[in-house]
């Protein structure tokens, strides 16, 4: 009796499958839904924890660098400092690679820990007038002679030895809010934005390095200090970036993100979504390689698709990295596996929008210009292809 009651088979097999009504075997359906709106919006850029920082100006893009040092040794307190220099190692450029990079160095005043500082805040500072909210002039100007690309060193002379003494001192006055400098490009003559290695560079020899010459008990000596942090803030003139409202602009380095709306998607819900692929098509003629006066390739030829809470701010619930391919006409397409995103749209967990941003958008100034829903050719429009089955 026990043997009988425990049965012989509870694994399903195909017997009886034909008795199921048509449509009840989870018939797969594929529908393509096209974008219904778009915009290009600025977004906060996180630059304090990457392996580089940017400095320079190219066309209407500007990047200011913030560099500070920490973990000073007690051994340098009270020594006679004779001079100081800061060495920076180039790693990247955006704009004219052969262009010189004139910039000014200022003594930082305000704390800019993390990513709270913005370009707008810095630019409100008036150099020659109190209260010097963020920085004040220490009389250092620099004009690089770099003409060989992305591997040269930049040396910043620091004539203000009192600033260095303050940095080494242990006094906790207001001047110690930031033991660092602010670097701003000379907007009148810079035609390149250059990237420099930060303290996060894996090769420690490329990290920003402070050299301090001093007279110690045993004569002249040089102290070398590498512990630092950095970030950059950037801006672009919106009108010069968004020259065609029918296109979607994704600008790295500034963080302009493309925002695409899909108001008309599946009317049946819930369904089981087996796959959803978001596809966008690049307008190559308006993107980085051509936008640069001297064509350069993308540093990162990839995009991220992000779920959106409001505007272009990612709500952190979904992200997908693109896969690059070409359509039959040779247009570059970026495809994102987006089943999770489609699900969130359909169950109203996220706004039915997707934000596009550059891969490591703090790392470069790549510009992706994407065809929008206004493209005359429907094949160029942003679309999401959903593979699903209706369950009853």
């Amino acid at each position, binding site marked *: 009796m026990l043997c009988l009651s425990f*049965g012989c088979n509870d694994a399903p097999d195909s017997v009886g499958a034909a008795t*199921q009504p048509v449509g009840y075997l989870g018939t797969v359906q594929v529908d393509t839904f096209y974008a219904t709106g778009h915009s290009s919006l600025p977004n906060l850029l996180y630059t304090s924890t990457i392996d580089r920082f940017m400095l320079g100006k190219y066309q209407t893009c500007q990047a200011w660098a913030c560099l500070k040092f920490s973990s000073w040794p007690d051994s340098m307190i009270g020594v006679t400092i004779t001079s100081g220099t800061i060495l920076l190692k180039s790693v990247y450029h955006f704009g004219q690679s052969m262009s010189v990079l004139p910039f000014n160095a200022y003594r930082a005043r305000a704390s800019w820990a993390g990513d709270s500082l913005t370009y707008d805040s810095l630019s409100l500072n008036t150099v020659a007038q109190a209260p010097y909210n963020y920085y004040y002039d220490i009389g250092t100007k620099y004009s690089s002679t770099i003409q060989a690309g992305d591997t040269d060193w930049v040396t910043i002379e620091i004539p203000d030895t009192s600033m260095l003494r303050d940095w080494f001192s242990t006094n906790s006055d207001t001047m110690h809010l930031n033991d660092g400098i602010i670097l701003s490009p000379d907007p009148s003559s810079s035609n390149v934005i250059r990237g420099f290695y930060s303290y996060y560079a894996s090769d420690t020899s490329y990290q920003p390095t402070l050299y301090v010459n001093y007279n110690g008990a045993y004569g002249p000596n040089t102290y070398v200090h590498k512990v630092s942090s950095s970030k950059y803030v950037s801006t672009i003139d919106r009108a010069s970036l968004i020259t065609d409202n029918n296109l979607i602009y994704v600008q790295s380095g500034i963080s302009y993100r493309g925002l695409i709306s899909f108001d008309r998607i599946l009317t049946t819900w819930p369904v089981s979504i087996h796959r959803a692929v978001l596809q966008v098509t690049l307008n190559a003629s308006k993107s980085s390689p051509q936008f640069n006066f001297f064509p350069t390739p993308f540093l990162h030829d990839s995009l991220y698709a992000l779920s959106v809470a409001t505007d272009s701010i990612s709500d952190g619930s979904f992200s997908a990295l693109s896969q690059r391919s070409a359509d039959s006409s040779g247009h570059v397409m970026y495809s994102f596996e987006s089943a999770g995103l489609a699900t969130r749209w359909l169950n109203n967990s996220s706004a039915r929008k997707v934000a596009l941003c550059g891969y490591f958008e703090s790392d470069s100034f790549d510009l992706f210009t994407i065809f929008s829903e206004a493209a005359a050719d429907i094949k160029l429009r942003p679309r999401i292809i959903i*593979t699903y089955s209706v369950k009853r």
Partner: protein
Amino acid sequence: MNYFRIKVTLTIFTVLFPLIVHAGGSSYSRYGFGDILRYGDSQIYAMGGTGIALVDDGSINLLNPAGMSRISFTRFSAGFEYDGFSSKDSSGSSFYSTGGLQGLAFAFPISQENGIVMSIEATPYSKVNYAISSSNFDTLSGSVQHQTFYGSGGLSYLGLGLSGSPLNTLHLGARLNYMYGSTRQYQTSSFDSSYYTSTTFDRTIYYSGFTFTLGAIYEGIDQLLGLPSLHNLSLGLTLTTASSLDANIERIYSEGDTTNQNGTDDIPLSAGFGLSYLYQNRYRFLGDFVFENWGNLKPFALDPVSLRNSYRTSIGFEAIPEKGADTYWKRIFYRAGFAYNSTYYQINGVGINEVLMSGGVGLPMGPESWINIGLQVGLRGTTDNNLQKDIIVRLSVAVSASELWFLKFDEE
């Protein structure tokens, strides 16, 4: 050996044993409320489910509440059933088995003179049990899709019955049935291609509602017609009202969404007619006919397949031991039956019919108490039109005991 302990242990075992078994069955049970069961008590079970006109002291008639009027001692009935389904269609064959509680009933005589007996019972009404897999190349996705479907659950009812005999030859009964239960389908879908996400879908329909069963058994046909030869002929009628059960569908998707939808599902009117003839107080012959108009119901949550009106015809036979039999073997009841069931399933335009043969014994276990063993073997469906044919084997073991069974007698 302490027989009293054995009896108590057997009773507990019979009730609890169904809890440890598991599922499997016919894919036809995906439709409607699943396989509609017709238990009627272990005695009736072995006679092909025939017993509308049966009035007996030795069992609780779950088909017709009027049939309880002759119960003279508090009676208890509980059974366990094993089901085996050997199914085949054009794709192959399979075997599934399951087991479960067949029913639990108590009857309390209140007035023997007036045939007043009250009953309370819990009985399965329908059963859903299937497991199906399907693999097809999907041209849209360009991948093979694998799907599985598991079904389980069913409806039961809690019945509160009352019988009475206004005349010596007329027994009436009524029972209020609280219908409840749920049917569940769990579905998985996966693809050979890694591009496609595996999904699950879990749908459960919860039901609740009331029906009302009226019954009558008339034993005075001989007097009515003036034919003394029909002295032991009785006529039974049952009528169970139609009802709209409250139905709540809960759908759980693998994406984490859960939806709920409320509505009603109809249970149709059920009308039954039966005859019983007792020959020389030793041989009982029975016949039943039951009609249910499923074809007119308005489905809400049920899969939108066409159901049809069902009818069930059955005959039964029981050999009753001679009074005063002196050996154990002579005190055994022997039963047999046959049923033809035009089920409410209509799949791919074809009605699904079932034939059933049954047999069984009633093994005396004490005063007015038996272990009833019943076996039903049947065929259902056809392999035509992409349908499936089921060979059904059901085995029932049940206790039908009166209060006397639990008393200690000196001889024990």
